[in-house]
Structure formats: C-alpha cells, structure tokens
C-alpha cells in the first residue's frame, strides 16, 4: 500500500465513483480513471507475473507501451485477456483478473523459475529441447506453454458486434497532443476536411499529463480553447479512443475505434469496435515520444515506474506513486517529476542523475546525486530500498517509488510501415523517421521536437505547408514559430555492476546478460539477437525495450546504434481484436448463402441439401421408410428411367448474350462451331483455356438472330462470365457483343423420363411433339394458357427424353408444383443431384470430375467436336502441341467390377491386372463412380492411358488408403442406352 489517491485535483470526476474488482477484491475508482490508475489509487502495485520467471510485476507506464500490467478484463463471452490496464478505461462493475499466476498473483508457485534462471537464459529452448525430437511436441512444448504465458481466451462466443467503414479526408492528424491539435486547428480553419484521431479517451497528450503552460495560459486552458474551436468546425472530425494502427498503400490508414470498450452496459445496437479505413490525401503523424526505461538490477520491481507515467497519473488521476520517491534520470524529465511531486508536498528522497555534469539550476528540496546510478532496486513484491552507486561507493536509500527516465524515443512506427528505415540521430541519440514522405509528415515530439511551444509551432507550420500544397492557399499556421530548446541527450544504455537481473524487455523477460550472450554466441545482428533472445517479440513489440536492446548490442559490439540499426516496423501498432478484423463477417454473415428459387419447393418436398460453393442444392428426397441415402437415390434413378422425375437445375450459370457479333464471339470462345447454330436450337459447347485444356462445358441456345442463352456449370458460372468479359473487352473490343448474368433471374427445372413429354404438354401451350420440338430444340413457350412465358430446352443430362423449363424466378415454386401435379398420374418424383450424378455416369456424361484442368477434348472423346475449319478460337494454337497428341494420354473409359458384389471408390488407381502398385505401373484413375441401380453394379468413369483402345481389358482397381484391390474390366463409358433410343424417344 504505497501508491495512493490525492485528496484533490486531477481530471477524474469525483462525483462519479465506480465499483470494480481485481482478482475478486472489491475496489473503487472514478470516472476518468484507467484500470491502472484505479489500481494504483487503491494501493495495488503488484498486478501480474512475468512471462518466463514469474517475477512480480507492477504498472510501469501510463500508455499503449505497457509491457507488465496485462490483465484479463470482463467475463463470459466478453472476456478479453492481455488487456493493458494502462489504456483500459474504468467502468462500473468492471472485472479485472491478473494473469500467469497460480494460485495467486501474491503467491505464485511459478516463481520457482526465477531460481532456475541460470538454465532458462536466452536460447535455452534451442539448446535444451533439441532432443529427443519426438519430445518437443508431446512433452516440452505443453509444459513450456503451461508455465510461460499470458491470459487465456474464452471459448464462449463474443456477444458483441463489430463494423468496418471508410472515411476520406484532406488531412489525417494522428495524435491529439500539442502538435496534432495545432495541425488540426490550422487545417480546420483553412476549410480542409480533417480527421484528428487519438488512442486516448481525452485529447491533449502532454497538455493533460504535464504541468506546463503556454504564454499566459495554463496547458488545460489552452487545450479547452483548442478543443472547443475544433468541435465548432463542421469540417473536422475528432475520433477519440481510436488507434491508427497502420499506414498502407494509397495513403490509406487503418484505425480501430473502441466504441463501447469503456461502458459497463453495452448498447446492443452499437458496435463494440469499429475498424476505419481512412483514405487521406495527406497525414501528419504527431504520435509523440516514448520514455525509455533505465536498465538496472530490479528495474521491474512493483513501484518502479517511468517518470513521465508518474506525472501522468499525478496530473490526470491525482494518484501519487508512493510516500517516498527516488528519481533516476539522465535528463529533464526526472527533475520535472520531482518538482511536480514536491509541489504537492510529497517527499522526493533523491534525484540520481547519471550525468556527471548534472545541471545546477534545481531549486527543489530533493538531494541531487550527480554522476550516480541506481545499481539495484530491491523489495520483491513491492519496492523497499534502492542501492545507489557513485564513484565506487554504494548508498542505500529507503523508497517505495522510483521514477526513471532514460530519455525519449520518438514514436515513428507508422512512418516506417511502408518501407522507410529509421535514421539514427547522434544529436537526439534516437532513431528518427524521414520527416516528410509522400503522403505523411512527422511533427512534434515524434519528429524530435522537445518544448511545448516548439511542438505547437511545428504542428501548425507543417500543416500549413501541406495545405498550401493541397491548394488551400489561404492557410495560416495556428501558432507562431518558436525556437526549440533541445536537451543534450546522454544515453545510459544499462547500469554496470548490478547484482539483480536488469530487464530490457519486461514482457518477454529478456535481461542484459541475454543480449550480451547473444553477441558472444554470434547472434549480435539486430535481427538475430531479436530471435535469439526474443527481445521485442512480445505483444508490446518492444515499444520500450528495442531502443535499449540496440544500445546494449552497440556497446557489446563496440559500434554506434546507427550500425546496429532497427528491426522492421510492421502493422499493427498495438494489438487488434479479431472481432474488429472480422467485422460483420461472422456466423451467418461469414459468407453469403445462395438459395435456388426452388429452395422452398425442394424443402417442402423433403429434400436433403448439400452445400456446393455458396449454393444449397437438393441432394435427394427421402421417402418415409427409407433408411439410407442410397435407397432414396436408387428409387429416384429407377423412377426417372421408368416414369419421370423433376430436378432443380437453377444453380447452373446462365448468361444472356446479345449483339450482332454474338455468334462470331461464341465461335471464338468455344472450340466447336457456333456461327451457324440455327435460331431455336441448343448446342453443347466446349470452352477451352488458352493452353488447350477444357475450361468449362454447357449448352448454348440461339433464341434469336442476335440473342444467345449460355449455361455454364454451377461452379464455373462466375469464372466463365469474367472470361467472356475479358475476351470481349480486352481481346476483341471491336466485336459488338454484350453479356448479362441471369443466373438468379430464372428458375430452371429439368423434367426427365419417358413420360416427361406427356407431363409437360399439360402445361405448355405449344405442340412439343418430337416432330414439332425435336432433340436440342430451344424456344420461348407460353404456359398455362398464356398466363406465363418461359423458355423450353430439349436437352438431357440423364440420357432420357428430357426437357429443361426456365421460368422467371418468382414463379419457380408454383410451376414446379404444377409439374408435380400434372405428373402425379404418371408417377413423377422429385430427384436430387445425387440421382442426377448417377444417371450422368450411367450415360457417360462428364462433369468437372473429368474436366479437371488436365484434359483436352480428345481425352474425353470430343475430338470430333474441335473445329478444324475455324481460323481461331481460344485454345486452338496450343492444342497442336506434341504432348496433346501423345498416344499414352489418359483418356476417358468406363470401368466396372467383374463381380457386381464388389465395388471401388472414386480416386482409386487403375493397374494392369496383377501388377504391383507403382508410379510406373499406374495406368490412370477413377474420376467418377457410383452404384448404378440400372446396371446393378458399381460403375465408374476413368481416365486411363489409351483408354478407348482397351475396352474389355481386365484390370485391378487399387485403393491404397483402404487397402482395396478390386478386379474390374474397362469398357465403354456409356453404360446405358448407347444407341440414344430413349434420348430421341
């Protein structure tokens, strides 16, 4: 119980107390608190255990870089592990739990790892768990995962919603600190469309976390004036609680807005988070600077905090870090903290300044130890004393808080997301980003500017220049120029002689010795050291640790930090929830469902559906008493062959093709002839790829001179449409041809079987006798005595006398009902895609099981379809290649077991009878197979070397997955009605 709430002050609302719990213990904070500030106000400094050594850890920072204070917040489906307490806003009844501890954060058995630390240094995974190899997955990894870790995700579904949206602006300003506010004000006044985004819940940056003033105004007065003016400008949008996490192509920025993360009672009509994609003409990065920790023994003990964080909690939430504070600094930040604390009467025991020539202007009470360092902090779970070393002597001071500052690093992540490399500045002793890149300008302390006045001036002036470039010639800077007063930076990368572990990367438990040993073992390159030690690889991505690691590597390698360089900055700046990334694409909205216009008709007739791509197609229609799908399918097949059946084929792709060159166009995209297709006729067409392989097949009908109707397979509908458009627009733009997809406009119904004509004639007004409407007829027809117009095609996939009737989608169900009614006396039954598949295999018709991207027309017996007279068509040139005429090409053949009681599976390979399975002996494979109730046996289609020449040959069908060998015979692929007597019936 050392940190505490001051009795007055701060920006919290003391009239709005908020109850919350930490590890089950009730606590209270106020509106305006973060979880971290509320915990500190309750005297709670120990909030977690470290990743590897399970060391007690407290709250280190007051912002997004926090490596220690990772809590699990919320419960049930709203459980969110690894939440940084320093950015999580407090709300009524918030539930926070510590992580990576057992049984409790105060007493954690995992801390025994600290004693084992000599064996757990950098690279220990690689060295210790090398062998036996099989142990890694089964033994080592589970144990390591259990011992080292973060919070656990919930298995319950997230009850909240998320959304994504776009925004466009002239100027995006990232960060609402002094530079960002000044830039936004400058641009807002000029009339530009401005978005000002800040990750916090209150704008101001250092204006609210520091005790500064500007000219005659206090920082808070200045802030209030600027915010009031920005809010009055309709062209300025202030996006608070919004982290701009990435800079992408086309000057598009990604941002996540935490819309309801800070509320106790979630409004179900609003999203929890909103993912913004902001297309900005120009952007100003005013993300500020990050304070660097000092690296000394015990620098992770709860009670050790960043000096700037101490000021932030002090000014914003009126929280004092302790009763007796020691400051360890190498620059002005430490003195500012001491002055702020003393101004409220708090005790600062000493200011330890690592610079031997510490400035002399200090007017406070605290003793200054110039040229000294904090060698070690001690206290275990709470800081109790500090050992200060100066000139060989060591002095121990009692303290319950230590504020440290190792200087500042500009926050340049976003400026380096598109490939720019940071540049080391000796003057600033920091890495800086290029100040101006195409589309992005860095301003304020992110650009290395230090004083408030200079930051305001820098933001204003850089915005003014951008606005002039954008054509806002009247733009004037909101603040006058001001000279900066830079400090002479004197980095202290680490303290020598520390007894305890001096942590560099708090979250991954990397300490100085790990980095030194990385250099010693040859992993001194910054990228290698990162992976060898895991420095910078935790969820904070090294926001605090990378710079110190680089400094330590530089000293160990005796080079400049410029020579060490940085690892690569990549999005996201801070972790992003999967919810925000998924947006609305979850559950039923993960992908659309496509339902045929006959879906409800199929459902009421008892269909079992199967997903094919986005479509739901009816597979079979079980009748009562049928216990297996095969029973239903066999019955459907036999009934179609004997009587008639009705099948939904609406999912086939349908494309209307118009234009005076439509016939010429089709002649070029199909390998067979279409130029002279008569009006009123359908033709089966084969579409090739440019390499000669078959792309898709289907029927195309000529409905009038310049109007064709193409069908594609279900799976390739979109691809064929894109292909036709490419051919028409990019290859032959001179042809007069246009396309419209009408897949969803038509319900298409196949009626097949010997009685199909009798059934359809009852509803079709025109004569559809064989003489009037022969095989491959295609025409518009009148239905139900002129009440409806449709399209009728005499085409057959089943090999039966068959028709396909297309009617406008909305009439599909009524027409299907009418066909069922008309067919009742003829024994009609609905059939699904399974029966359709059986009948097409019986008839030797191919689908994409055979058209699998490796076959050319002659492989499937279509050699005669390929035009030899057309001057050109897609695929023509490559069909004449040597390999395409090879005798040994796999070609279509039928296959059936010698013993009808035996069977084989699709995908099985064909071997010469008795041959041992090997690549050399492989003759081909079964591409489709089914049980044929018509034949009374399994039948299959296969692609086999010289297949058509081998009808009658006995072979072995081999399925190594099942260990099955089936004796079979190759035969014609047409198992049923090879004379096509039924088709033409």
């Amino acid at each position, binding site marked *: 119980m050392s940190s505490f709430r001051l009795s007055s002050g701060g920006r919290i609302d003391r009239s709005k107390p908020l109850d919350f719990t930490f590890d089950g213990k009730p606590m209270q904070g106020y509106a305006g608190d973060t979880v971290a500030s509320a915990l500190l106000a309750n005297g709670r400094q120990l909030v977690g255990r470290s990743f590897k050594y399970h060391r007690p850890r407290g709250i280190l920072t007051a912002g997004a870089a926090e490596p220690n204070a990772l809590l699990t917040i919320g419960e049930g489906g709203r459980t969110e592990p690894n939440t940084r307490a320093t950015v999580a806003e407090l709300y009524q009844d918030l539930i926070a739990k510590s992580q990576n501890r057992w049984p409790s954060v105060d007493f954690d058995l995992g801390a025994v790892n600290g004693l084992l630390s000599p064996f757990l240094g950098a690279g220990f995974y690689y060295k210790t768990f090398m062998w036996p190899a099989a142990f890694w997955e089964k033994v080592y990894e589970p144990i390591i995962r259990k011992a080292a870790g973060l919070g656990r995700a919930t298995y319950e579904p997230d009850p909240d919603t998320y959304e994504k949206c776009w925004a466009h602006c002239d100027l995006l300003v990232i960060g609402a600190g002094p530079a960002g506010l000044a830039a936004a004000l400058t641009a807002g006044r000029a009339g530009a469309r401005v978005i000002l985004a800040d990750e916090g819940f209150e704008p101001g940056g250092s204006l609210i976390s520091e005790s500064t003033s500007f000219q005659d105004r206090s920082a808070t007065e200045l802030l209030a004036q600027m915010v009031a003016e920005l809010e009055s400008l309709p062209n300025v949008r202030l996006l608070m609680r919004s982290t701009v996490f990435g800079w992408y*192509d086309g000057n598009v920025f990604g941002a996540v807005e935490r819309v309801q993360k800070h509320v106790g009672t979630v409004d179900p009509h609003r999203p929890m988070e909103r993912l913004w994609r902001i297309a900005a003409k120009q952007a100003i990065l005013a993300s500020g600077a990050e304070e660097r920790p000092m690296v000394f023994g015990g620098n992770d003990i709860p009670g050790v905090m960043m000096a700037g964080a101490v000021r932030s909690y002090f000014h914003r939430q009126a929280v004092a870090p302790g009763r007796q504070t020691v400051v360890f600094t190498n620059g002005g930040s430490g003195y500012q903290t001491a002055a702020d604390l003393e101004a409220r009467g708090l005790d600062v025991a000493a200011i330890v300044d690592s610079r031997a020539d510490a400035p002399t202007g200090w007017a406070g009470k605290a003793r200054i130890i110039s040229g000294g360092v904090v060698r070690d902090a001690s206290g275990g779970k709470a800081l109790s004393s500090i050992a200060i070393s100066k000139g060989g002597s060591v002095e121990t001071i009692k303290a319950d808080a230590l504020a440290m500052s190792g200087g500042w690093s500009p926050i340049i992540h976003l400026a380096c997301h598109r490939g720019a490399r940071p540049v080391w500045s000796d003057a600033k002793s920091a890495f800086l980003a290029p100040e101006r890149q195409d589309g992005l300008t860095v301003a304020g302390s992110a650009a290395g500017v230090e004083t408030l006045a200079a930051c305001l001036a820098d933001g204003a002036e850089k915005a003014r220049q951008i606005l002039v470039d954008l054509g806002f010639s009247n733009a004037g800077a909101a603040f006058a120029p001001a000279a900066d007063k830079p400090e002479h930076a004197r980095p202290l990368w680490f303290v020598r002689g520390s007894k305890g572990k001096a942590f560099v990367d708090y979250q991954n438990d990397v300490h100085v010795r790990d980095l030194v040993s990385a250099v010693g073992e040859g992993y001194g390159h910054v990228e290698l050291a990162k992976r060898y030690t895991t420095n910078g690889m935790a969820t904070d991505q090294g926001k605090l640790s990378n710079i110190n690691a680089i400094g330590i590597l530089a000293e160990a390698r005796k080079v400049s930090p410029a020579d060490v360089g940085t690892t690569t900055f990549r999005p996201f700046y801070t972790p992003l929830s999967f919810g925000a990334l998924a947006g609305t694409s979850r559950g039923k909205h993960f992908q659309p469902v496509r339902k045929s216009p006959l879906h409800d008709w199929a459902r009421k007739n008892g269909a079992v559906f199967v997903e094919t791509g986005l479509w739901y197609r009816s597979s079979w229609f079980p009748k009562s008493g049928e216990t297996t799908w095969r029973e239903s399918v066999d019955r459907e097949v036999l009934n179609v062959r004997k009587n008639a059946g009705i099948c939904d084929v609406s999912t086939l792709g349908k494309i209307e093709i118009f234009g005076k060159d439509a016939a010429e166009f089709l002649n070029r995209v199909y390998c067979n002839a279409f130029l002279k297709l008569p009006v009123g006729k359908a033709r089966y067409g084969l579409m090739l790829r440019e390499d000669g392989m078959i792309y898709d097949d289907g029927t195309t009908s000529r409905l009038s001179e310049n109007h064709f109707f193409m069908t594609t397979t279900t799976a390739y509908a979109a691809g064929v449409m894109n292909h036709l458009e490419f051919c028409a627009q990019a290859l032959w733009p001179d042809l007069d041809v246009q396309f419209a997809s009408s897949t969803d406009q038509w319900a298409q119904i196949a009626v097949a079987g010997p009685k199909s004509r009798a059934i359809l004639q009852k509803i079709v007004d025109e004569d559809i006798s064989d003489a009037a409407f022969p095989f491959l007829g295609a025409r518009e027809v009148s239905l139900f005595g002129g009440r409806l117009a449709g399209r009728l095609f005499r085409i057959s996939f089943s090999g039966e006398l068959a028709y396909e009737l297309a009617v406008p989608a909305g009439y599909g169900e009524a027409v299907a009902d009418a066909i069922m009614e008309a067919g009742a006396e003829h024994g009609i039954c609905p059939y699904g895609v399974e029966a359709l598949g059986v009948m097409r295999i019986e008839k030797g018709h191919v689908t994409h099981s055979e058209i699998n991207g490796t076959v050319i027309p002659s492989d499937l017996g279509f050699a005669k379809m390929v035009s030899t007279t057309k001057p050109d068509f897609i695929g023509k*040139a*490559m069909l004449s290649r040597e390999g395409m005429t090879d005798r040994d090409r796999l070609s279509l053949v039928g296959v059936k077991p010698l013993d009808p009681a035996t069977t084989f599976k699709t995908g099985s390979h064909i071997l010469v009878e008795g041959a041992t399975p090997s690549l050399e002996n492989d003759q081909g494979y079964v591409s489709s197979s089914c049980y044929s109730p018509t034949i009374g046996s399994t039948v299959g289609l296969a692609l086999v070397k010289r297949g058509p020449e081998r009808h009658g040959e006995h072979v072995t069908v081999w399925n190594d997955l099942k260990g099955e060998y089936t004796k079979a015979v190759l035969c014609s692929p047409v198992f049923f009605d090879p004379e096509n007597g039924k088709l033409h019936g």
Partner: protein
Amino acid sequence: MASLIACPHCGPRPKEEFTVRGDAGINRPAPDAGKDAWYAYVYLRDNPRGRHKEHWHHTSGCRRWLVVERDTMTHAVYSAVDAAVTGETV
C-alpha cells in the same frame, strides 16, 4: 489492407472490388504466329520490379477490364484505363 484503384468508370474504389489477372503488356498472337510466340504468350511472364501494367477486372463494380499501371514495389497506382480503350497495344 486497402489501396485504392481509380476506376475510369466508378472513381477510386478499394482493391477488394477488383480481380487481378496479370501482365497486360503481352498481346495475344495471331493463330499462325508459331509455337514460340504462343508458348511465350501462354507461359512466360516477367516479374518486374517497379512499373508494371496489369489487367484488373472491376468484378464487384462496373465489370470492365482495366489496364492498371502500378509499381510492384510501392504499390503506387499510376493509371487505370479501360482495356477496350487501351486495346492490346499497351
């Protein structure tokens, strides 16, 4: 994440609406152009670093094929022209 392509018909639209096909700088040979020309057209592709013209289809927009010139390193988009206007001679 997102970059924008300025479709000549629809204005700047997110790239997710488009489908890229590949090099727009190769012309479909004449039917009798010979084996080598066809082999090159069907199979051979350069993988340039820097400016590159490609066919992009505005699949979820106007459904026009465009010739988009972009930088394969920086992804900067320099131009987007309807393929029918540009023809094959890009």
